[in-house]
Every structure is written in structure tokens, then in C-alpha cells.
């Protein structure tokens, strides 16, 4: 698994062009898994269908792209290509694209949005009114019918709302038929309007459909006064100074035919929509598989890009319990340092059966915690199939990663009490196997130094003799180094502080062999701005307690 993923990443790294183009194509796909899931629940609309169709087309393009490149490589890419499924999904895409009219869909969306905006506006009015009204009757009175009717009328006669079709005319033979009939009915309507205009000599005549009155003929302006006696069937509905409406049976009949036909068209569109949806559901399994292949490709391109950006190298993984990392780095910390113009000091970490447990001492902020973390992170990254921030890394597979890096210094809420430490440590000791990897930072804090050292020793003993796993154990208790001198497989390393004369000093972030018996706490205190007298008193106390100078064994 892992090696195959690493192979894939390697192939992609070598090929800048492929990487960029692949990224482009992937970016243009839609979230198939979620789309497909929507359909399986019976949700999903025409837009989703289109998105699915486009994605299927993109997948085809991706496959062609990969096929073009992988002929030159043995290739994970080729194998990936083979896993794509074609027939079913392609069929789905084709049918969808043939049936759905994208322009119509966009128009419909626009009109929907306009309606929503209107509805929002009107609703806001209602709510505002409601704010001052609690009685139902008052509310009724505040909304007058005439205003509503006019607004609705305006919408009905707006050609876009009524006549937007989302399917193409020829999506199915039935639909084509219906559309042809509709076209001819519209012609008839036009003909009727023209005839009437000629007959009555009224140029402002329009044939309308209103929700309140139904199909009416509407005249306005100067033609209002014309004589309707030439039309014996006409029945006047309303007349005012500027407008006049009347019913005409021919128009009524034609109008209702048109409306019926429109309904049937809509019904047919729904039918087609449902059959498309069913087709998608039939191909669910294949579509999902294709989607997961695309996902793997995406993650691989992500790893490839990352490797280029951070100069990562391919790790070598094996079944041993050794760890060999040369010049390992912590990616996020390094990025942070670089942005402020500083350098990250890489470190080696080599764990073998003779040096399986590293006891690391040294002053705070000299990089102990970072070192611990970067080693764990490198293992995690390697096993996800990504390249790692190291010049060289050969890692034994890890079955579990444990850490006791309480980081009370970072947690504002969860002050790491001794109890919590013990809980975490207990968990580790009970579950670690010889294939595990453990990092521990400052076990034994939060209690007296004697108890801390005792617990620390006991834990080291257990890890060494019983768990037998790879461990990085950082501590301030340098006494532990002496107490564990005779442990087999334990090695002491440390970080240090470098004096530069004239009271100036800096941290040496390199982890070297040895024991650092000075924590240089006073230096940190001074740096933190503790008052002079306090620091002076502390150093005197330290001398009286028998301070030993730095003892670094080479």
C-alpha cells in the first residue's frame, strides 16, 4: 500500500507538466461522492445532474492525460487508469447532456433568484407589519387583495417565468411532440390576436391570462370605447376609464389548451428527470469507484506538490524496528523560522537495537520538544504515503504512536496536573508493543523532584525491559542518566547552550551525545525579564546547592 503510494508520488514529481495539468483538470471536477450520495437519497436536482455529467467528462479527460504520460513509465499511473470504469458512467453523462438544456436551467435559476429576492422583500414587509400587529384581523386588513393580484398578474404574464423549460425539446419523442404542438398553439394565439385587432380595429388588444379572471382580452387606451357588438360572444368583465377587459370563448378555449399542454410538458420533463436519476442510481457503484480513484490521484498530486515545495525526500520503509533519520526537520516550525529569516537546525535520529531509547536532557527551548515531535511526524507522514522532511529516512513500520507531551506550557485551560500525566503514561505503558513508537516529554513534573525521578526511572525501566519499543524520552532530571547507566539499549543525548562571552549566549539546537546537567534556567529567567536581584539570589542558592558545571561526554 504505502510503497505503491510512494511510487505514484514519485512518478508525479518527475513530471511537472503532468502535475500542473492534472491539478487543473481535477479542480474542474465536482464533488462526485457527495453528489452521488444526494441522488441515492432521492434528492438532487437538474443542476446536480449536470455537475455529475461534467465530472464524468473531466474524468475521461484525466484518463486520456494519464494514458499519454504513463506509456513512458511502468507505472502506478497506468494501473490507476485501468481501474476506472467507463461504459456505465459515460452513458449516464451522455444521456444527461443530451436531455438537459443548460441555458434553460440558468434562466430558471435567475428567475427563481429574482422571485426569492421579491419574496424576501415582501416577507420583510409582512414581518415589519407583524411587528406592530398581533391580531389576525388587523393583519388581514393590512394586506389588500388588489395589490397582490396585480403583482401576481405581472408575474404570470412575464414570459420567462411561465415558459422556461429545463429539458431540450428533443430529449424524448414525447417531449418533441408536445413542444411541436405548443408551437402551433402559440401560432394560433398570435393569429387570433391579429384577427381580433383587425376586426375591432384595436391595436392595443392583448390576450392575457390572469389568476383572478382567467383568460381575458384586454384593451387599453383610446380603444376602450370601441364597440363590441361585432363579437356576439364577448362578455365584458370590467371596464374603467383607461382599460377594458372581456371574455371571448375562442380565446378561453385556446388559452386553457395552451395551459394544459404546458402542464403536460412539465410533467414529461419531470418524468425524464426521474428516469435520469434512476440511471444514475443504477450506476452508483461505478461512479463511486471512479470518484475514489480521483481522490487518490488528488492526494498523490498534493503530496507531489508538497514534496517539491518543501524539498521532501522519499522514505524507505521496512518491517524492522529501526529508525534512521538523517537531517530531519519539523515542517511547520521550519516554515515559521524561515518567514522570520532564521534557520532551522536539522537533526539526526538513529534508533537501533543498541540505542533504542534516547534519554535527552538539555535546557528548555533548545529544541527538545521539537525534535521529539518531528521524529513522530516523520513516521506519520511516511506511512500515509507522503515524502518526508529529511535528507534520508529509513523507517521501520510503526503500529502505534504514543506521546506524553503534555505541553502544559501551551494549554491555557488544561493545566497538566500530575494526575493527567500519570493517566497518559499509564495508558502508554499498558499498550506499547515492540513495534510502537513513544515520545515522552518531562514525565515526573508536577510533584517533588524525588518522586519525579523515581517515577521517571521506573517508567524508563519498564519501557526498556518490557515494552522494548523505540522511545525518545526528554527530561530535566539528569540524575536519571546516571541511574540508567547500565541499561542496555539506552543512550544519552542532549541539547546545549553556547556561551559567547560577555554574558551573551545562544541555544545550540543540535542534538548530540552526552548529558547536560545544567538546565540554564537562570538564563531563561533573565531573558524573561526577572528583576536583577532575584536572578542574583537564585544563582547564589544554586551555587550553595552544589551546582556542577556542564558535563558533556563525547
Amino acid at each position, binding site marked *: 500500500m504505502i510503497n505503491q503510494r510512494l511510487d505514484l508520488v514519485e512518478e508525479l514529481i518527475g513530471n511537472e507538466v503532468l502535475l500542473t495539468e492534472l491539478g487543473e483538470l481535477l479542480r474542474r471536477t465536482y*464533488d462526485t461522492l457527495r453528489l452521488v450520495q444526494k441522488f441515492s437519497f432521492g*434528492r438532487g436536482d437538474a443542476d446536480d445532474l449536470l455537475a455529475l455529467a461534467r465530472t464524468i467528462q473531466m474524468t475521461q479527460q484525466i484518463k486520456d492525460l494519464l494514458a499519454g504520460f504513463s506509456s513512458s513509465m511502468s507505472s502506478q499511473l497506468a494501473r490507476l487508469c485501468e481501474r476506472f470504469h467507463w461504459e456505465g458512467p459515460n452513458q449516464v453523462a451522455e444521456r444527461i447532456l443530451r436531455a438537459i438544456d443548460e441555458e434553460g436551467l440558468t434562466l430558471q435559476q435567475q428567475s427563481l433568484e429574482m422571485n426569492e429576492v421579491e419574496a424576501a422583500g415582501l416577507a420583510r414587509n409582512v414581518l415589519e407589519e407583524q411587528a406592530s400587529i398581533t391580531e389576525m384581523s388587523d393583519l388581514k386588513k393590512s394586506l389588500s387583495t388588489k395589490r397582490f393580484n396585480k403583482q401576481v398578474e405581472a408575474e404570470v404574464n412575464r414570459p420567462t417565468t411561465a415558459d422556461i423549460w429545463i429539458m431540450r425539446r428533443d430529449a424524448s419523442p414525447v417531449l418533441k411532440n408536445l413542444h411541436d404542438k405548443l408551437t402551433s398553439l402559440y401560432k394560433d394565439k398570435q393569429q387570433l390576436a391579429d384577427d381580433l385587432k383587425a376586426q375591432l380595429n384595436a391595436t392595443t388588444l392583448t390576450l392575457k391570462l390572469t389568476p*383572478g379572471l382567467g383568460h381575458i382580452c384586454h384593451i387599453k387606451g383610446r380603444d376602450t370605447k370601441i364597440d363590441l357588438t361585432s363579437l356576439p360572444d364577448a362578455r365584458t368583465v370590467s371596464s374603467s376609464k383607461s382599460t377594458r377587459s372581456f371574455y371571448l370563448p375562442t380565446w378561453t378555449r385556446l388559452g386553457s389548451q395552451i395551459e394544459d399542454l404546458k402542464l403536460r410538458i412539465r410533467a414529461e420533463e419531470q418524468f425524464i428527470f426521474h428516469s435520469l436519476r434512476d440511471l444514475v442510481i443504477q450506476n452508483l457503484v461505478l461512479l463511486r469507484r471512479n470518484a475514489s480513484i480521483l*481522490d487518490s490521484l*488528488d492526494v498523490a498530486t498534493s*503530496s507531489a506538490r508538497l514534496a517539491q515545495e518543501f524539498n521532501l525526500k522519499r522514505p524507505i*520503509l521496512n518491517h524492522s524496528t529501526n529508525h534512521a533519520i538523517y537531517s530531519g526537520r519539523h515542517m511547520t516550525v521550519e516554515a515559521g523560522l524561515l518567514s522570520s529569516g532564521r534557520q532551522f537546525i536539522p537533526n539526526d535520529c538513529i534508533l537501533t537495537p543498541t540505542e533504542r531509547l534516547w534519554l535527552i536532557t538539555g535546557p528548555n527551548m533548545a529544541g527538545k520538544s521539537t525534535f521529539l515531535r518531528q521524529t513522530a511526524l516523520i513516521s506519520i507522514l511516511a506511512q*500515509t504515503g507522503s515524502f518526508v522532511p529529511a535528507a534520508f529516512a529509513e523507517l521501520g513500520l*510503526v503500529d502505534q504512536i504514543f506521546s506524553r507531551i503534555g505541553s502544559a506550557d501551551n494549554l491555557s485551560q488544561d493545566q497538566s496536573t500530575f494526575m493527567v500525566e500519570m493517566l497518559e503514561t499509564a495508558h502508554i505503558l499498558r499498550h506499547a508493543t515492540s513495534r510502537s513508537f513513544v515520545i515522552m516529554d518531562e514525565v515526573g513534573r508536577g510533584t517533588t523532584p524525588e518522586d519525579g525521578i523515581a517515577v521517571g526511572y521506573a517508567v524508563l525501566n519498564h519501557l526498556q525491559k518490557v515494552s522494548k519499543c523505540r522511545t525518545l524520552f526528554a527530561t530535566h532530571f539528569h540524575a536519571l542518566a546516571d541511574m540508567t547507566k547500565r541499561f542496555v539499549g539506552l543512550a544519552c543525548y542532549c541539547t546545549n547552550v553556547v556561551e559567547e562571552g560577555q554574558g551573551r549566549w545562544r541555544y545550540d539546537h543540535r542534538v548530540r551525545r552526552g548529558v547536560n546537567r545544567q538546565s540554564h534556567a537562570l538564563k531563561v529567567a533573565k531573558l524573561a525579564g526577572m528583576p536583577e536581584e532575584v536572578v542574583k539570589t537564585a544563582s547564589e542558592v544554586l551555587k550553595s546547592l552544589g551546582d556542577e558545571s556542564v558535563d558533556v561526554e563525547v
Partner: protein
Amino acid sequence: MLVPTKAAIRALRNVCYVSHGPSCIVWASRAASSTTEAKAKDVTDVPTIKRTRRSKAKIENVTFDTSLPDDVNEAPTVKRTRKTKAKTETISFGTLLPQGLLSIEVSPLEDLEDAVTFSQAYPTVVQQARNNMRKFEHCVLLTRVGSFYELYFEHAEQYGPLLGLRVGSKKTSAGPVAMAGFPFFQLDRFLKMLVQDHNKHVAISEEVANDPSQKVRSGGLMFDREVKRIITPGTLIDENFLSPLEHNYLLAITVARSNDSTDDTGDFMLSRVGLSWIDLSSGDFFTQITDIDSLSSAVARIGPREVIVQQAEAKHIVGKTLLSILDGSGLRPSFSESPPAVLSSEDWASLLDDPSATDSIQAFNSEETQSANLLLHYVKGHLPGIKLKLQAPVRQSAEDYMIIDKNSLRGLEVTQTLRDGVFKGSLLQAVRRTSTESGARLLAQRLSMWVDSHLELV
């Protein structure tokens, strides 16, 4: 009650067209094919129509039947219908659509003011809401009324202010009823507040158009209402506020009860626990066994939005430990009643998109199948009437993956920083260079849940 505006109705209808299909077309058709007999009526006429109808012999519509003051105890609606049919032949519901919806909301109230006695204390909509609130008592109930969603009774009082809604009061003959609502197109916004921010379960009672016989039976109401969906943090499907870059897992936990008598003796920490989790929005479905001891790490790795536990668990000591572990992870479980029966292979075959995968499921451990049962039972209960077509569950076992324990996930800042618990600054952010959203999800999974421990394809 808030009266929907005409334009809102029209907008509603168009929305319905896209998402609800034929049923709404029928409704739309009725509106569109207004017959010539229709006469415009003012809204203010509505209450008076009833009164005039009593005096006039000619009756135009069936909907106001409930206004009959006499013979109320018999079915007044039926009587009126028959009389109506003799006089006119129009079933002009459609003509009343613009006003019809208005008047529906009006008539029950008006009726109450007119009627001498009435079998219901509250108007139908409110009464249904009350019944639903009793039926789904751990949920917040939203009732669709026209183009608004309404909260009633205690829900309005409790959640109205929480959502920033004005709590009004509706007069009914049985007393005032607290009420708060918002327009339908703001549903997503309020759902997000309730479900994601306040971790509530929301039951949505949608309108279902009544066919003519139902209309008559219900006293002229155009719509009935049903709870079609209960929305919980773990059962989100395609809501707008669902983050596409993360999984939204629903986790079910069952504990094997090997020894019922020894409830309080030691090694219940080794009791086997079945885990089963699913992301309804993407279809990922996994199962795993673990033990109580490793449970908190497993839960941390999965990162569920909602956890389900059987109601009966709470009584046993193992169950209590389970609950305290969840509490320690900051998760409050939803309790579910036990599923009625174990799913047979036919049941599985009908649920999965690939029926051939049923065989692999037979190989699962009993704890895994139990938790899968619990999970599916819960899901079905919250999406009633929806036919599920899921991916077959993928079995995860400890041997296949590197397990990163809970403290390591946190301490190493794999998906979130320690200090702020945010994505920026975590390993995932540093590493993610994906081009698609589902690729991003896979990467997140690979980093936390699925770190491989196999070198080659097995």
C-alpha cells in the same frame, strides 16, 4: 399566524417545481387553470362569505364548510358538500388559490369564533404541532405554514430568542399560543444555528398537498403536514452549512455484554466494543472493534459529530464508563432505543448499492454488526420514507493501521493546533495541497484515521 404573500406563494410554487416534482405541478395546475367562473374576491370578504352563504342559496366553494353553526357534531362538511354539488359544478379550488391559502389560515380561527362547539381545542395546524412536539419530544419542531416555518408553544418561547426571532402570540379559542417564525428561504441559516451551534435535533414538519377527499375530511384544509425528516448533527446530507472539507461522521457504539452477573468486577475495561460510523453526505461507512481501554483514542481518531448509544447502556457499569469516556472527549451521546432485530442478509442486500458485498458483512464480528444495526436503525428513523442505498461498510482492524492515540493526535497537532484548536497551523494545513474537496477529505482521513501499516497491497 403569518399570512404568506402572493408573490411568496408564486416563488414557493416555482421552488416546488424544481424539488418536489409532480405533486406541486398538480397544485400549480390548479392555480394556472383558473376557470372563467372565478370571481375576484377581496380577502376581507372571506369571513363574510360564510355568513352570506348561510343566507344565499348559491354556494361557490367547499372550503368553508366548517363554518356551519348548526349540526356541528355531525360531519358538517359532508353535508355541505352534497348541497354544494347540487347547486354548482365547479371544483374551483384553483380559483381560490391566491386567496385560498390565506383563507385556510383564516377559516379555522374564524370558525372557532363562530362555532358553538368544536371537537379540537386548537386549530388543526397548531394541534398537529402539539402532537408532533409530544411525539418527538427531544426535538425542536419546525412547522411549515405557507411560506414560513413556525415554532409553537414552549419551542417558540425557548428557541425564539435563541435564534433572534420575535416571539408573538396567536389567539385561539383555547388560549393564546406562543409563536415564532421565519421565512422559508432562511431555513438553512436557522438550521445551522440549531443543529451545528446548539447541537439540537430538529424535526421539520412539511406541507403535503391534500387530495380532494382529504380536503373534505380535514374541513377544507389544502395541506396536511408530516414530519419528513429529523435533522441531527450527524445525519446531515447536503445542507449548505455542511463543510465540504471535513467528514461528518455519525458514530454508533455498542458494548458486548459477556457476563451479565458480574457487573462491577474488574476487567470490564477489556470488554469488546463495536464501533460503526457513517458519513451520510459522502457515503463512507466503517466498522471496527476495540475495547473500552482504547475507546477514547478510537473516538478521537474518528472525530464524530454525533454519537449514538443504546438507551439500555446507561444502566450498566460498562455503559457508565462508556458515557464518562465520551464525556471526557466532550461528546454528549444521543440515546436510541434498541433496534428491533438484527439485519438479515436480505435486509443488507436491499440497503447496499452493491448487493454482492453482503457476503463480506457476514464475516463481521457480532459487536460490529450490532453497532451497524444500531446505526442504521437510527438513520432510518431520522430519514423516514427515504430508501437508503449505502456503500458496504469497510472493516477497519487495528492490525491494518498505525494507531495514533488521542494525546498524540492532539499533541502533535495533526488536525488542529493545541492552543486554539484551529486548522491553521496544524499538520494537515501544512500538508494539504489538494485540488478537490473530496481529495481533502481523503487526506484528512489518511492522516488521522487510516495511517497505513502495510507496505504492499495485501
